[in-house]
């Protein structure tokens, strides 16, 4: 560029060379992935504090405060019980439909709220991003942490519902923990993915409610999973049954309930769940990292 040449001629060596010779680093340089991960790890206290701050900020203006974390899933379950248990009274050929329904609603709700909050995590904190220097992945990860807290509260409610509706407590219940750990990693990857995508293409935020709704209908939340096998076949069925949300929901139902029809044998479900977790968890992280330096642009 001509302009640069003019500027350089009176300063001797070019400014870029001068910067290099004094070991200055370029502002806005993208760190390597391992370096970025280490940096992120050193900010773990910030992530935890930020997640806590978000919870207290959102509940701080309510009178009941933390009690809402338990009340929200209870009301949620109550609404579904009213509609499907009392008004429509569909047993849908499932023993203990209420427990079946609540497992689906709560497990799907976990991912749903991570996607909703994650889609805002960059755009809503743009002032913080422009002011302070921290690995940006802290924000979507903090969102995922907040939702883990809510999920634990809703799992307490779910366990109570499952026990009250007559399911026995067995050793198989322990499978709930690995299933939710896998889902948490999956959700974090999803939050990272969505937050970068929406910070670049803001239009997609308008579509999020519809994407989530169609995803819910495709995840056998409100009706038994056998519903699909009765209606569609071949590649369409394979497509629906490889839906990660359907798989996570099935794993939770399998862990908590005795006689529940699964779309596929349990080991196959675990394998698919693990593949989805690695794929989305790692993929989302790498995708987010690649955009690290552009988030301040807004």
């Amino acid at each position: 560029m001509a302009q640069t040449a003019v500027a350089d001629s009176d300063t001797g060596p070019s400014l870029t060379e001068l910067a290099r010779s004094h070991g200055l680093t370029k502002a806005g340089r993208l760190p390597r992935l391992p370096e970025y991960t280490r940096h992120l790890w050193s900010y773990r206290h910030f992530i935890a504090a930020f997640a806590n701050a978000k919870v207290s900020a959102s509940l701080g203006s309510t009178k009941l405060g933390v009690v809402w974390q338990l009340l929200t899933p209870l009301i949620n379950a109550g609404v579904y019980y009213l509609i499907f248990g009392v008004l429509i009274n569909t047993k849908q050929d499932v023993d203990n439909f209420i427990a079946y329904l609540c497992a689906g609603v709560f497990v799907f709700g976990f991912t749903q709220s991570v996607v909703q909050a994650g889609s805002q995590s960059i755009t809503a904190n743009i002032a913080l991003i422009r002011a302070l220097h921290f690995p940006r992945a802290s924000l979507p990860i903090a969102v995922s942490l907040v939702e883990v807290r809510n999920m634990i509260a809703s799992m307490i409610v779910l366990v109570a519902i499952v026990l009250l509706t007559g399911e026995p407590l067995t050793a198989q219940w322990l499978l709930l923990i690995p299933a939710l750990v896998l889902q948490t990693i999956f959700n974090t990857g999803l939050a990272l993915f969505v937050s970068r995508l929406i910070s670049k293409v803001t239009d997609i935020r308008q579509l999020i409610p519809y994407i989530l709704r169609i995803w819910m209908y495709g995840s056998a939340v409100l009706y038994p999973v056998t519903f699909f096998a009765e209606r569609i076949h071949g590649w369409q069925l394979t497509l629906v049954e490889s839906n990660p949300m359907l798989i996570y929901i099935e794993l939770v139902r399998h862990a908590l309930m005795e006689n529940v029809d699964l779309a596929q044998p349990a080991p196959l479900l675990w394998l698919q769940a693990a593949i989805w977790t690695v794929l989305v968890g790692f993929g989302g992280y790498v995708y987010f990292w690649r955009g690290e330096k552009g988030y301040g642009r807004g």
Partner: protein
Amino acid sequence: MADQRQPTVIADNANIVYRIYGSVAPGANSPLASLRRIVTGKKSAAVREVHAVKGASFVAYRGEAIGLIGTNGSGKSTLLRAIAGLLPVERGGGIYAAGQPSLLGVNAALMNDLSGERNVELGCLAMGMSPAEVKEQAPGIIEFSGINDRGDFSSLPMKTYSSGMAARLRFSIAAAKKHDVLLIDEALATGDAKFRKRSEQRVRDLRKEAGTVFLVSHSEQSIRDTCERSIWLESGVIRADGPTDDVLKEYETYVNK
């Protein structure tokens, strides 16, 4: 000229362009126009580009305090953000810095629903302090900000603070850490006279700790008091760079024209 002075920030032909979505004349964003764009594959007219900083080049050295002056919208804050690495610089140029420059400005939003104390904690953690360091520094930060001068404000939510109090707290948080390069955006102009004196002293201390300070301010007095060198930006172009007195004189004649 190979002098011993250690450069801390170097800008080499830095261009900064904002891309703004959805701010177009009525009609250009109508469904029909959007559809036409999609069909013809033309670049969206809904994106407008604002060239905020044009080909800025300068070298800042260790121990310097540099004032950035210019009329509103001349690109001063944008330049600071780019030095902090928060805004990307266009291809063909670059900004280089020693360590991680920290930006401190009145816009540095913390969480308004949380108490001052928790914002101090959060802000310090976001600057990369360990929890032990935060615990050690927090009382000093609150003390320095002076928000507790009129009763226990540090435990109240930040949204109850006056704008001056909030700005003082933000300044205190950012100034609690030693920075290689500290970028200050108008922060000194918001506090009252007492706080201004204290913060100017703090800026001088930070400089002594072998850092470089950039100060954006509309208060010529605070620039004169803290900076011996100034850069004058006008419409994104560096108009003058040199000793504060000379640059300010030039700037004043321009403004009073």
